[in-house]
């Protein structure tokens, strides 16, 4: 009774061995005259779609940051009627959860599909670091619309950063620029000489607070207190007591809600901070739910300049029609430009066979992106440097006063615009 079964085992072994031996042989299927470069190439047969992916944060606390950008990518696709080089564009949406672990998983999903040409993402710099390591190994390019950490590109003075990888690009500004913008505004427009910074332990807020501090000291000011809170804190009074004791002229706290709500509300109880003209936040707080808190009246905010012009108005109209609401975060325009940059570069390097088959060489695509110069997007004129910073960085400092009701009003109340040389 047992015998046939054992025989089956015995049969299985050689089969499996043969299979294992065969598993590794690599067959390259090239047709026509196309020769792939060293990073390989994507071949899209006639009738098959061109695949791209997004790795954005679409769950958890930062879901709106990613959702906003995924919508922008879809609009960019719709603008081309969902087609590129006669092939349908297919979008694969992955979640980075704004965390390193999920960034890794998402990138693995992307590279496990060899047909994916390029990626728009990630939402958060912390997810981009591990994701880009995986993508770079496979030669996949990624363009982010909202990463701002200097660690991903360079210090803007020609020094390559630790986590810079080939094939990484971004259309968002480098933190160093926003830090400099906010510090310049504080010293030049407000005449501040002493600053306090508060972050919440998030890599983004910590990086921005540090960048602000450096720029402020470069401009001749003094950082009298660089402190931090923890996410989940509610009682800000003790830390505000320390802030008040240091007698700063400006308090820069680029943190998020709900901690920032507590900060703004409880600051009212301290005479030095009561009229709020010493408080400054950043783009993370430029949302309706924050500015409608009465205690935030008088606060300043730094953030990427709201794009202007007919092209942007056109984009917003499409966004509203498609999603039933106005853009929910600050980086949709950047993601839209990123997508168009990717599409344009694909069109530039693609090799078409007579039967409609398209070859996209990964190295050529990467080179084409590094060569982007003067790309006219809705966020301005974009040119990529050798480390992947492509933004046309304009930073606005805006103010919430009693006259502004909605976030659009606040964004339009521009006091100062910073553009690096």
């Amino acid at each position: 009774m047992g015998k046939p079964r054992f025989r089956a085992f015995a049969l299985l072994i050689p089969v499996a061995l043969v299979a294992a031996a065969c598993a590794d042989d690599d067959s390259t299927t090239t047709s026509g005259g196309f020769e792939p470069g060293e990073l390989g190439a994507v071949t899209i047969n006639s009738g098959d779609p061109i695949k791209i992916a997004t790795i954005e944060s679409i769950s958890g606390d930062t879901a709106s940051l990613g959702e906003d950008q995924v919508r922008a990518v879809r609009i960019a696709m719709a603008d081309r009627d969902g087609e590129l080089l006669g092939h349908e564009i297919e979008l694969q949406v992955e979640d980075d959860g704004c965390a390193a672990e999920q960034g890794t998983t998402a990138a693995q999903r992307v590279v496990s599909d060899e047909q994916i040409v390029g990626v728009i993402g990630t939402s958060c710099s912390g997810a981009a670091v591990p994701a880009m390591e995986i993508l770079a190994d496979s030669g996949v390019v990624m363009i982010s619309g909202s990463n701002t950490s200097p660690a991903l590109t360079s210090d803007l003075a020609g020094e390559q950063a630790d986590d810079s990888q080939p094939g990484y690009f971004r259309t968002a500004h480098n933190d160093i620029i926003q830090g400099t913008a906010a510090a310049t505004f504080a010293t030049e427009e407000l005449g501040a000489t002493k600053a306090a910074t508060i972050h919440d332990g998030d890599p983004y807020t910590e990086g921005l607070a540090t960048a602000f501090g450096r720029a402020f000291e470069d401009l001749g000011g003094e950082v009298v207190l660089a402190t931090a809170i923890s996410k989940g804190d509610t009682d800000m009074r003790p830390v505000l007591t320390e802030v008040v004791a240091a007698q700063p002229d400006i308090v820069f706290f680029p943190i998020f809600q709900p901690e920032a709500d507590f900060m703004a509300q409880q600051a009212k109880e301290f005479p030095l901070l009561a009229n709020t003209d010493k408080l400054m936040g950043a783009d993370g707080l430029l949302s309706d739910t924050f500015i409608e808190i009465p205690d935030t009246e008088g606060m300043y905010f730094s953030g990427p300049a709201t794009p202007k012009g007919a092209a942007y108005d056109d984009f917003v109209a499409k966004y509203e029609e498609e999603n039933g609401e106005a853009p929910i975060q600050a980086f949709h325009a950047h993601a839209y430009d990123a997508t168009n940059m990717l599409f344009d570069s694909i069109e530039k390097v693609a090799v078409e066979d007579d039967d409609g088959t398209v070859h996209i060489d990964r190295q050529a695509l990467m080179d084409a992106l590094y060569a982007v110069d003067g790309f006219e997007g809705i966020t301005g004129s974009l040119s990529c440097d050798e480390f992947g910073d492509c933004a046309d960085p304009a930073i606005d400092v805006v103010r919430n006063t009693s006259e502004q009701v909605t976030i659009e009003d606040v964004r339009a109340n521009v006091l100062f615009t910073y553009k690096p040389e």
Partner: protein
Amino acid sequence: MLGFPPVRSPREPRLEPRLRGRLRALADRRRARAVQLPVVDSFLWVVRIAAVVLIAIGAFNSITSGRLDSQQWRDLIVFGVAQGSVYALIALGYTMVYGVLRFINFAHGEVFMIGAITGYFVSDRLARTALWDAQPFVALFLVLVCCMTVSALVALTLERVAYRPLRGAPRLIPFITAIGASFFLQYAVAGLFGVDVKEYPDVKVLNGTLTFLGFRILKVHLLVIVAALVMMIGLQVFVERSRTGRAMRAVAEDQEMARLMGVDVDRTIALVFGIGGAMAGAAGLLFGLVFRNVFFLTGFLPGIKAFTAAVLGGIGNMVGAVLGGLTIGSVESLGPSLVLSGLDIPAAHQLKDVVAFLALVLILIFRPTGILGERVADERGEVAVARRRSAPPAAREGELLPAREVDLGRALRLGLLAGLAAVFVSAIGMVQRFSEREIVGEVSLGTLLLVAIPLVLGYAGGRAPPQIEGFAAARPGRRNLTAGLLVGLGSGAVMTVFVLLIDNFDVRDVFVNISPDLVADENGPQLLTFGNQLPVGILVVLALNLAAGMAAGALHLLPDRWRKAVLAGAIAAAGFGLLQSLIHQLLRGIQEELNVLTAPLIRFLYQSSGALSWQGAAAVGLAGFGIYAVRTRPDRTPFQARLERLPRRRQRVVSLAILAVVALVLGELPQILGPFYSEVLNIAGIFLVMALGLNIVVGFAGMLDLGYVAFFAVGAYTTALITSPTSSLGVGWNFWVAVPFVVLAAAAAGLLVGTPVLRMRGDYLAIVTLGFGEIARLLFLSDWLKPTFGGAQGVTRVPDIVIGPIDVKGPQAFLYVLFALVLLAAYVSYALQDSRIGRAWMAMREDEAVAEAMGVNIVAAKLSAFIMGAILAGLGGALFATKIGSVFPQSFDVVVSITVLVVIIVGGMASVRGVVLGALVLVGLPELLREFEEYRFLLYGALLIFMMLSRPEGFIPSKRRAQELHEEELEQDAWLGAGAPAPTGSGS
């Protein structure tokens, strides 16, 4: 005398009492004779002295620096006392419950949060009326009443549903249930009312400050402080003076004796929960008034702090709770400015929780039972509490009592529960989210969910109660069917009411996820009525529910084997539907790697949309049914027996062949799975290594560790520092060089955490280890240690593992390394289980004092468990660091500790195979089912509660624990406990 009287164990000890007493005495003599822990004690003294010196230096520097003026110091004291009063209010509830039941209601923080949310909804509505400004105190009183009522109701429900059935079970079990309830309530509130922050309206009378004795104090702060004092005194008087209070104390002292004396124990305990809940509700409102913003996680941190406060003051002690709250609040507020800034530590307020938890550790080292002392000395072992050896009910020799029949009343109650569950999953948006994926044919996961609820509960309702010793077996019959039908009726009726309700009223203002797609939108998908217009839709809902309930009940008419075969078929079909993409990849991988043609099979099973086709579902279901039926045929000899019948040589050949096949399958697995699914296995595998480590600490040695993530973080950071060329060390050595350092660092961390907690047990141990976990994360994150650990920016550029010439790059290669580590960890677990030290651990788990008397070296046993567990976690951390390639402090929060704990408990504590299964199901599966991602913690919570209520020993229990927690035995105990002396009364 304040507080509750000493509590005696309601259960008789397992050992003969006299023997136990003698062993105890022996243990005491041993303690007295030798100075027990000379090394440990001197270490602890060094810690104490160092702490005092550092505090003194820091305080001196801060005060003399003149950075803050005296008014600001006074302000800080007031802030601390006010914050501490909030903690104290919550801590009172913890302490009340603990005093009576000796059980930490971990979900109390969520009861508090629900009070705060209720306060928001009521005050937000009231603020639109004239009453709010005209009669603010009347309005606030109304809000207060609502908050207290709702919170008390939630607490009572919790007690009835989750805790009462577990009374008398080992103490770890209700504690785990409470952790589950905590997650469940958080994410239920998030699902029902949305995740956004809700802002309280302004109360004008409470704005502004008062000054007395040179202290400036906000009016709301004064309100909170007064409320805390009033409640403490009120409760104290109530417990000491009132008749009910006396009953509470009696129950606390001895439940069975109290019952004999005519105290209604259930009612008294419910009352304790009710009062505790009402106080939490009041605390929630006060929190809302002070901080203005509340959301679904509002209860978590304050809950943990209040838990800490209760432990700090001496749990079970009311005055202690308030004192503990005030201590924690003041330490948080003053500590960073007074001590840390004085020691030149930057960004001191980032470390306020470190200060709070360190204060807890220091105070507990000085006084292991809190400031004021617990009312009792904890003498019992944690995991295993002696269970009553129950005698079979009084029946004459050879005679059986009449069978216990299906309880129809219970079936109806289950039906209502099923209806409520269906309403709940609809109201939190789950049905809508799930309806985006098709599972079988055109049927979506959402539809399947709605039908599955009456099916599952109908199955449960139609089942006869478990057979217990001395009773005849119940015969299947009409009653099973009727019970199933009743469940369907109940759930159908509740759903109908819900459908009519949301069709006619718009409740989205409060319940954000009840979308028009469910019913109201006539052109929409009408998910709840399965796409039908209303009058007809109701009939469809009712009919489907009835049919599902009846079908499930009818299953019980089948003989056992066929019933289980049908279940196997259904589960197989559901599994193939849910895991469509995994099975797709598996089949494709087999074709590509093994050259076995599977493409036609894929086309047969799945439609182009990815859903299982109907013929596929039928085939898979039939296959499941058939395989189960064949495997369980009565004349079948088990494989093992057949193997043993073979001659020796053949046996060896067969074993080798099996081993070869297993090795081959494992060898090919990463290739077949492809990179993504290998990655999923990697994630599950890292958790598995950690779970095997925690299993040593919790499962084998019985010490509840809630801060296990600390060792994981130590391993990850050690690896990153040594191997990354850009870390602060900057040496960039090979991974293998880092491994010994990881082991050393983790062992050192285990020793560091293990030593101070040597004398702590149970709840003290849990909260202190939780504190250590948070301390580790905050230190890695801090600006202070940023030059070493990289602060918020972490450490990046951790290189891949290199084995000789092979670079372990990518998830598939990584999986092989992980296999090796998992095998090592499993081997260590098995080896330890039966070793001398393993036996010592288990003896210690059963009863520490007795183990000590028998010659077990408790210090060595405890420390070695901590160190072994820490090393495995550290190795897991090392692999995690190279896998991700970067280490960020955000990866190491308390949720990791809880997840690992859930894995071992759900899998089967102390059982290695159970832990493996737990890791695959709880960590791997959610990665595959992305739809579940949003509801991950909700499902964790529900699963924990469900497991503890129905199968506390886990999926695959260890034999020993299963003996401790057998279902029939529990049932028998319950039957005896209910005091049913007349056996004939139970059949009706």
